[in-house]
């Protein structure tokens, strides 16, 4: 029996729905899951029917931030609709930063808008009563393959192991930094002089948050081919409860020392290693990758 999925939205940009639409294996998705409702896919029911009916989904997927009122979906408030189906569902998967922590849109009314379990970095969301059913998949947007992995695990009857923020450890046990092609530049403290180069690490000047942001962006690539940090865009920390931070495209430093260090790395250890690494100039890492000839 195909797992019955119901995808409902709060305040959202539809980006998670579109992100999910990029799964590599859509034929598999159509075969393995039955969508009661999804914002893009043609499905069994209309939103109006969902709002009037009783569909007992196996998994409720929530996209978007929540607010007590002012977010009508059909004839009902989104939160009423979502709460009703959260009760019925076996699992509630929060897809994306907004559903998990409230995301960017929470900034509009921080005291009124929140995620399922969290209001930004604090506990206290709108679906606290269903905590035990909730699986959080933060990210702006959610990575399609992270969501598909979670759904497939549930289809197999296995709940992925979760961390203390109820994120699957196999997806969020990595930092974004792990697997970035610029790791060697990080190791030897070779900073990217500017945007727009394959060479250099974006941690020192351009604001990359990869070393303290959880997520497997550089393990399970985006759109099957790339990641922001590989391409040259700093990680903006979109899976973390403190997203979005201020000044995303520059590194905050205190007397030239990055204000935030890689997760759990003590300051003295970091500074000592930095001093060591900086003492050496690795010729290969100071040249353009493909030699002086232009590519």
């Amino acid at each position, binding site marked *: 029996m195909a797992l019955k999925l119901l995808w409902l939205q709060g305040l959202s940009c539809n980006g998670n729905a579109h992100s999910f639409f990029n799964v590599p294996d859509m034929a598999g998705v159509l075969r393995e899951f039955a969508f009661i409702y999804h*914002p893009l896919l043609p499905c069994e029911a209309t939103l109006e029917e969902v709002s009037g009916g009783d569909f007992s989904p196996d998994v409720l997927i929530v996209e978007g931030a929540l607010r007590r009122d002012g977010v009508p979906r059909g004839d009902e408030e989104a939160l009423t609709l979502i709460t009703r189906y959260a009760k019925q569902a076996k699992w509630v998967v929060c897809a994306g930063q907004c559903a998990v922590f409230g995301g960017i*849109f929470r900034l509009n009314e921080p005291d009124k808008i929140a995620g399922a379990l969290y209001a930004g970095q604090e506990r206290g969301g709108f679906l606290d009563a269903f905590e035990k059913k909730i699986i959080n998949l933060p990210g*702006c947007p959610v990575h399609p393959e992270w969501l598909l992995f979670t759904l497939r695990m549930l289809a197999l009857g296995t709940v992925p192991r979760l961390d203390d923020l109820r994120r699957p450890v196999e997806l969020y046990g990595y930092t974004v930094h792990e697997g970035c092609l610029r790791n060697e530049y990080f190791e030897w403290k070779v900073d990217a002089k500017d*945007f*727009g180069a394959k060479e250099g690490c974006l941690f020192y000047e351009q604001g990359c948050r990869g070393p303290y942001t959880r997520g497997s962006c550089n393990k399970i690539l985006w*759109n099957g081919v790339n990641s922001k940090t590989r391409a040259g*865009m700093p990680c903006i920390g979109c899976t973390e409860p403190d997203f979005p931070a201020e000044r995303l495209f520059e590194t905050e430093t205190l007397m030239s020392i990055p204000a935030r260090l890689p997760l759990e790395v003590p300051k003295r250890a970091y500074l000592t290693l930095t001093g060591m690494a900086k003492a050496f100039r690795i010729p290969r890492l100071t040249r353009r990758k493909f030699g002086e000839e232009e590519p």
Partner: protein
Amino acid sequence: MIQRLIEHVEGEALLRLEKDADGRIKRADILFPHIRGMEKILQRRDALDALAFTPRVCGICGHAHLMATVAALESCYAQAGVSLEISAKARTLRRFTLAMEMVQNHLKWFYLTLLPVVMGPAYNRDVSVLSAHTAASACGRAVAVMGGQWPHTSYALPGGVMCDPSHVERLQALAAVEEAGALFQKRMGLSVDAMAELEDPALLWRTEGDLALLLRRLEALELLEAGQSFDRFLVLADHTAGPAGKSLKTRLAAVETAYVEEDEPLQSAGYANFAKPVRYRGRFYEVGPLARAMVAKDPLVRRLHRRYRDAVSTRIIARVKEAAVLLCRSAQMLRQIDLGDPSYIKPRYALRELGSLKGEGAVEAARGSLLHRVHLRNGRIARYCIITPTQWNLASATDEPGVAATAMVGLKDEKAAEVVFKAFDVCSVCTTQ
């Protein structure tokens, strides 16, 4: 009065239809009930943060918002008298990734929005979804090759782009463009080149493919001529397939963004609406692929226009054709890029060194002209204003129905109204951001 929730339009919209004695639609109110407050959220933030924020206005055309932010910030430099050097490569890459987003949009719209409503139960769900998926994921991949991911990359910034592609990336991107092109040919029965060069509408009806199928169905439903509106077209920015300008019927003229003005949302009893109408010199204009084709004097669309004016058939064909034109041009753009060009040339000053600045960026997005207006104070955003294509096409004013509302007047039933409505390629999230 009939009330209908229109779904699968990047969120929902509510249609309120009033009918006359013959049962024809007399008045159509289009209501968009939520707002997320992006303009307010941007206030006081660092100017460059807008690069990460505005793409999150919309999950399907966020990349156009990124490009509008870049254009607006670059125009702030211009206002300060600081000239920026943007390499040809950076310009081309921006246009390329934007074109890819537009193509994924057009094909998703065709297969996920339009076919189901026009064909009714006669369409094959799985074929539709898989066609949309192949096109969308190929185009998304092409953006990701350059920008790291799609949706929601912020890889362009004042001064250029953040990536540094080599031949490897160029070929990966080309392969993605070709994959989307192959899907187009397989499903539409015409190669993208043939479609891009097509001038004779009769040939369209004779091909065997999804577009022809849809047109024949529209013909059977007597909807080919439905959905005519003001017959005024606006293109605020130069784009890959043509120039900026406006077209009153077929009469062309230049445009200036200074004449663009927003108004208060239409109030409709008992239901919230946040869609602000927008007019050019006090008049409503249609934006989007049809407007672009009219201003670019596209021969196929002009010929259709002679027969059907700004009806659904012209509108739909213009959009499908634009996907083909963009796919052709994208492959050319990729081949032309000089990979040795710099990707990014750092502006001589940071925005925060330049005091009080005003800027504006217009971009042609999938659904039409997108305008961002920004006011900076010492590098922080004092005011940010976003005017989206769907505001042009969908929003009515209290004193005057807008483009889509006018297009629905006189239609025979709600089904026709839904077809006409969806042919505009509605985006609920953009309309109200």
